[in-house]
């Protein structure tokens, strides 16, 4: 498969077009024929990346906040505890690391982009970027600050390297004002970034 630069080679027909162009052409056709809408495609892509997946993790976190017994189980065997809520995948084990007043946890996959996708969905683009993967190990505090996550100086930062066998999920601390809220209300406060450890609630 050689594709050259892929621009302006329309002489060979659709079969030889770069896949980007073919996908775009098909998408345009499906929209034109009113089979799909652009909104539908956008929604599937973006919700899967940033909403539907992370909502599963948010439910896990919220339950851990209100139910000490579940929290203990989650820390001991995260894979089983998540499966209890119906979130399971075929890929390896999950581990949960707890944020405390003394420790802030953050997750990276230095080798590629291992990610607990049954609870977080598809990894965001930055998670896969070489600079995130390298710098989160070398200078986590500086990188976190650049990402808008300011960890107080007296809080230790622990960096966890996810692998295909063990994918980490951060259990963030509840935000101020969480007291008295229901599990469902709490789940809405939990963000994807807080469960990767690049944000504090």
């Amino acid at each position, binding site marked *: 498969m050689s594709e050259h630069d892929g621009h302006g080679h329309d002489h060979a027909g659709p079969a030889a077009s770069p896949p980007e162009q073919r996908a775009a052409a098909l998408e345009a056709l*499906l929209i034109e024929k009113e089979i799909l809408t652009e909104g539908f495609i956008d929604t599937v*892509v973006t919700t899967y990346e940033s909403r539907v997946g992370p909502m599963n993790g948010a439910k896990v976190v919220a339950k851990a906040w209100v139910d000490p017994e579940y929290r203990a189980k989650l820390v001991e065997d995260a894979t089983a505890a998540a499966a209890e809520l119906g979130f399971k995948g075929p890929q390896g084990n999950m581990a949960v690391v707890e944020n405390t007043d003394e420790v802030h946890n953050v997750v990276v996959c230095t080798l590629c982009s291992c990610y607990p996708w049954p609870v977080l969905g598809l990894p965001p683009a930055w998670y896969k970027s070489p600079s995130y993967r390298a710098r989160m190990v070398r200078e986590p505090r500086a990188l976190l600050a650049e990402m808008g996550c300011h960890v107080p100086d007296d809080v230790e930062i622990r960096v966890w390297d996810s692998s295909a066998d063990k994918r980490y999920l951060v259990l963030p601390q509840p935000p101020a004002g969480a007291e008295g809220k229901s599990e469902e209300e709490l789940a809405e406060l939990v963000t994807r970034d807080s469960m990767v450890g690049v944000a504090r609630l």
Partner: protein
Amino acid sequence: MTDRRTAALIEAMAGPEAPRRADGEMVFEAPWQGRAVAMALGLVERLGVGWEEFRRRLVAEIEAQPGRPYYESWLAALESLAADHGVGLQERAPA
């Protein structure tokens, strides 16, 4: 809801047609690949043909050209499904 079913459908593909993963992780190398997944989910739903229909075409495309990048086979399966239901790219005048 399509979104909720996405994981189940994709996880159900365990053979050679299962999405390529980097060290176990499903990732898209380019945005069009994610859009192609969304198109497949939407198309089987709108055509009412069931996921198995798409999965079978994907398997056939991979077998036909084992060395082809995975999402190009996915796209070919999508194009063939669309074409067989009257949505063919050949209808479009060449640019």
